[in-house]
C-alpha cells in the first residue's frame, strides 16, 4: 500500500517537518537533537512514518554525503556514545545479567581498539518488550544522553518502533535482521544479519539438501506469531516452498500471548498433521512452551532463522521441558556457538573474562561482541570526521567483515546487508548449541 505511505510522508512534511526522512532528502540543519544547541525547534518531534509497505529487498533512496551541516551528536574528540535497547523485563526478555556483562566487553578489554582516537561508551535501556517504552527509551538515549547511534538487541516490534523514531531524527540504527516491514526503506536503518524473509529461501535449501531433512520435505509445517511483521517471512518461506513444488502440511499462527489451550491444541494439531519439520518463528518463550506440550513419540525437527532461538538459554530450559523434543533443532544464526568462537576469534573468551573478573563467557556475549566488532569496522570505515550523515553515507556503500558475524554488504538501495548465516544444532546432552556450518550463503 504505497499510497498510504506516501500520504503519511506528505503529512509529516506538511507538519513543518523538514527532516524529510521518507523521501530521502538530506537532513537539514533543523534536524532534531543536534546535540550542540538543544534546539526545541519544529523538527524535534519525530513523526512516524510507519505503515506496512512491504517491499522485497529494500530500496533505500540514496543520501548524498557531505551535503549540508553535519550532525555530530554523541561524538567528542575522544569518545563516541552509542545506545542499545533490548528487553530484559516484559513478556519475552533476555537474561539481564548476561546482557549487562556482555555489552561493553569489546570496548573495555585491554586490547580495546580506538577509533580514530576515540573510545566507545555504551548506553543501555530496557525496552520492556513494549514498543511504546522502546520508543521512549530510544529518545532518552538519543536526546538526553546524546547517543550517536542506536542499536536494537531483539524484539521485532520494538526494533521497528525505535528504528522509525531514529529515522525521523536521522539517527543511524543497527539491528539484527528481523522483519523488513516498515524498516527496509528507512535511510538510517542497517540490518547486520539476514532478515527473516531473506532466510526463507535458505531454509528451503537446507530442507531439500540436508540428508537428514530431505526425505521429510513433504511434511513441513510453519508456526509463527500472529503479527503482520512476520508476514514477509511467512510469504518468503511459502514462495520458496512453492518454487520447489512443495506445500505445507500445516500453517498456523500463535497469538502474541497464547493461552494454555493454544499450546495444547497446536501441539496436537502438529502431531495430527504428521508435521516432521516445523519452521518456528516466535519468541523463544513460545517455542519452549509449545515444545513442552509434545508427548508420546512425536519428535519433529524444529528449524528456523533468527537469533534468539539459537541462544543456549533457550535450550537450557527447553531440553528439560520438552523432554528432549528440542534436541537436534536446527537454527540459522548470525553468531557462531561457543564451540567455534575460538576458531573465529580467539580474543573473545579472553576479553570477556578479563572485563568481567573471570566470569564464564556465554553466547549472548558473542552476539554483543560480534555486533561491536562490526560497528567498529563501520566507524573505521566512516573515517575520522564522524557525523551521522557521514556514517550513513559511508556505511551504505561499505562491506564489513567482522569474522564473527557473517559479512555485510550494503548499497544505497539496500540496507539489508546480511548475506550469510551460521547453522547451529541443538545438543541437549551438552546443553548447548553446536555449530554445524559457518558462513554459508547456500546449501
Amino acid at each position, binding site marked *: 500500500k504505497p499510497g*498510504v505511505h506516501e*500520504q*503519511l510522508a506528505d*503529512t*509529516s512534511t*506538511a*507538519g*513543518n*517537518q523538514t527532516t524529510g526522512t521518507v523521501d530521502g532528502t538530506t537532513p537539514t540543519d533543523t534536524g532534531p537533537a543536534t546535540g550542540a544547541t*538543544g534546539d*526545541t525547534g*519544529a523538527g*524535534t*518531534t*519525530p*513523526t*512516524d*512514518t*510507519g*505503515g*506496512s509497505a512491504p517491499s522485497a529487498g529494500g530500496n533505500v533512496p540514496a543520501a548524498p554525503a557531505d551535503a549540508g551541516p553535519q550532525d555530530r551528536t554523541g561524538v567528542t574528540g575522544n569518545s563516541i556514545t552509542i545506545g542499545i535497547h533490548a528487553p*530484559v*523485563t516484559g*513478556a519475552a526478555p533476555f537474561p*539481564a*545479567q548476561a*546482557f*549487562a556483562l556482555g555489552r561493553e566487553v569489546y570496548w573495555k578489554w585491554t586490547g580495546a581498539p580506538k577509533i580514530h582516537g576515540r573510545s566507545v561508551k555504551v548506553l*543501555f*535501556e*530496557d525496552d*520492556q*518488550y*513494549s*514498543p*511504546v*517504552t522502546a*520508543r*521512549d527509551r530510544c*529518545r*532518552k538515549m538519543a*536526546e*538526553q544522553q546524546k547517543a550517536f547511534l542506536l542499536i536494537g538487541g531483539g524484539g521485532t*516490534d520494538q526494533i*521497528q*518502533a525505535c528504528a*522509525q523514531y531514529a529515522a525521523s531524527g536521522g539517527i543511524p540504527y543497527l539491528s539484527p535482521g528481523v522483519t523488513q516491514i*516498515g524498516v527496509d526503506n528507512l535511510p538510517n536503518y542497517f540490518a547486520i544479519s539476514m532478515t527473516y524473509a531473506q532466510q526463507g529461501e535458505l531454509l528451503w535449501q537446507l530442507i531439500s539438501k540436508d540428508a537428514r531433512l530431505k526425505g521429510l520435505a513433504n511434511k513441513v509445517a510453519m508456526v509463527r506469531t*500472529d*503479527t*503482520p*511483521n512476520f508476514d514477509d517471512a511467512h510469504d518468503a518461506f511459502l514462495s520458496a516452498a512453492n518454487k520447489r513444488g512443495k506445500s505445507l502440511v500445516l500453517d498456523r499462527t500463535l*497469538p*502474541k*500471548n497464547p*493461552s494454555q489451550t493454544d499450546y495444547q491444541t497446536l501441539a496436537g494439531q502438529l502431531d495430527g498433521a504428521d508435521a516432521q519439520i516445523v519452521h518456528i518463528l516466535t519468541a523463544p518463550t513460545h517455542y519452549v512452551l509449545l515444545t513442552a506440550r509434545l508427548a508420546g513419540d512425536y519428535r519433529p525437527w524444529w528449524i528456523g532463522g533468527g537469533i534468539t532461538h539459537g541462544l543456549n538459554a533457550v535450550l537450557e530450559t527447553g531440553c528439560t521441558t520438552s523432554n528432549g523434543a528440542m534436541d537436534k533443532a536446527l537454527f540459522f544464526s548470525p553468531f557462531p556457538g561457543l564451540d567455534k568462537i575460538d576458531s573465529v576469534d580467539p580474543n573473545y573468551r579472553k576479553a570477556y573474562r578479563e572485563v568481567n573478573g573471570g566470569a564464564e563467557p556465554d553466547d549472548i556475549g558473542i552476539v554483543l561482541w560480534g555486533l561491536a566488532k562490526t560497528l567498529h569496522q563501520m566507524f573505521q570505515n566512516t573515517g575520522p570526521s564522524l557525523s551521522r550523515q557521514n556514517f550513513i553515507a559511508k556505511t551504505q556503500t561499505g562491506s564489513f567483515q567482522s569474522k564473527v558475524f557473517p559479512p555485510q554488504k550494503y548499497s544505497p538501495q539496500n540496507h539489508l546487508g546480511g548475506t550469510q548465516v551460521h547453522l547451529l544444532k541443538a545438543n541437549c546432552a551438552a546443553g548447548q548449541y553446536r555449530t554445524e556450518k559457518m558462513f554459508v550463503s547456500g546449501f
Partner: protein
Amino acid sequence: MAIGLDVTHPMDVVETDLGGMPQGGWPARLIAGVLLGGGLLVLLGVVSPLDASRIGYAFIFAIVGISMRVLLGLLGQISLGHQAFVGIGAFMAGFVVTELELDFAMAVPAAALSGAAAALILGGAALRIGGLLLALVTLTFGAVAERTIFLLRQFTGGGSGLPAPRPPWAATDTTYAYVCLAFLVIVLFLDWRFVSTKAGRAVQAVRDSERVAASMGISVIKYKLLAFMLSGFLAGLAGGLLAFNIGTVQAAPFNFFLALEFVLMTVVGGLQYRSGVVAGSMFFALLDRYFGNIYDWFLRQLDKVPGIRGVSDFLRDAIADPGLLVPAVGAGLLILTLISFPGGIGQQLRPIVNWFRGGRFDLSLIHGETTSQGGSEDVRP
C-alpha cells in the same frame, strides 16, 4: 449475591469555614492558584521535548485515573480490563486518521465514543449483577481485547503499528503536551460537575445501596450503565490522546499489567480525592520514565559519601538494570499506601486542597477518618 462495596466519603467534602476566611482570604488563594497554574504552563514550555512528551503522557494517565475514579470511587465497581477501553480508543483514533483519513478533531471524539460504546455493550450484560463481578468480566474482556479486537487487521492493522500522526498545529511534543493538559482540565471539570449534580449523586447512592436508591426513584441499571459509560468514554478519550502522543498504536502495551497499573495509580492516588488521583496517575506514569535517572543520581550521591563506596558498587553489580526495580517500587508503594495511608496521596494533599477551597490549612486533615465497613448487607430488602 450481596457483595457490598463501600468507599466512604467519595464526595468531596467541602469543609468550608463560612465565617471569616482563614489564612489569606480569597486573594491569597487566587494568587497561589495563578502561580501554580502559570508555573505549570511555563514549565511545560521550557522543558526538553522528550520531557514534554513524557509529561503529556502523564496527563493522559491522569485522564485514565479520573476514568477509574468514576468507576471505582463513585460506582464502587472495579475494572481490571481498563487497558482495553484505552486501547480501543487508541486504535479508533489511529483508524480514523490513517484508514478514514480524517483528522485529529474527528479522531479524538471517535476514540472517546468507542470507549463509551464498548462500555455500553459490556455493562449491559455485566452490570445487572451486583457485587464485584464486573471486575471479573472486565478482566476477561481485557484478555479478549488483547487477543482478538486488537488483532483485527481491518481495524488495527494486526496490532503492530497503526500510525497516528499529530495534527500540524500540535506537531511538537510541547504543543501536544499543552493539548493533553487542556483535555485534562476539561475532564476534571466534567468530573467535578458529575459528582455535584443529579447523575453523580445517583451513582453514589447506587453504590451504597441499590434498594435505597431505587426507593428514591433512581433507576439502578441506568445509572450503573451511565457511570460505566462515562468511565469508558474517558478511557477512550485518553486512548485517543495516547495514540497521538506515541505516534504509532500497537497492541503490545495494552496488556493486563497496564490494567493493574491503572488500578494501582488510582488507589495510591486516593479514590476519594480528585487531586490525589491526578497526582497518583502522573506519578506512576513518570516513575517508570525517570526511575533510571533518579537511580543513577542516587548512586552518584552514594559514591560521594566516604566510607560506603562499596554499597553503590554492590548495587551496580547486583542490579543489572535499574528498570528491574521499578515494578517492585510501584507495588511496594501501593501496599504501603493501602496499609498506612488508606486515603492515598489525595489524603496527604488535603490540607492544601482544603485551603484552596477556602478552608483552613489544617495538617490534621492528613489523618483521615478511618473507613468503616458498615454492618452486614441485608440479604433482603
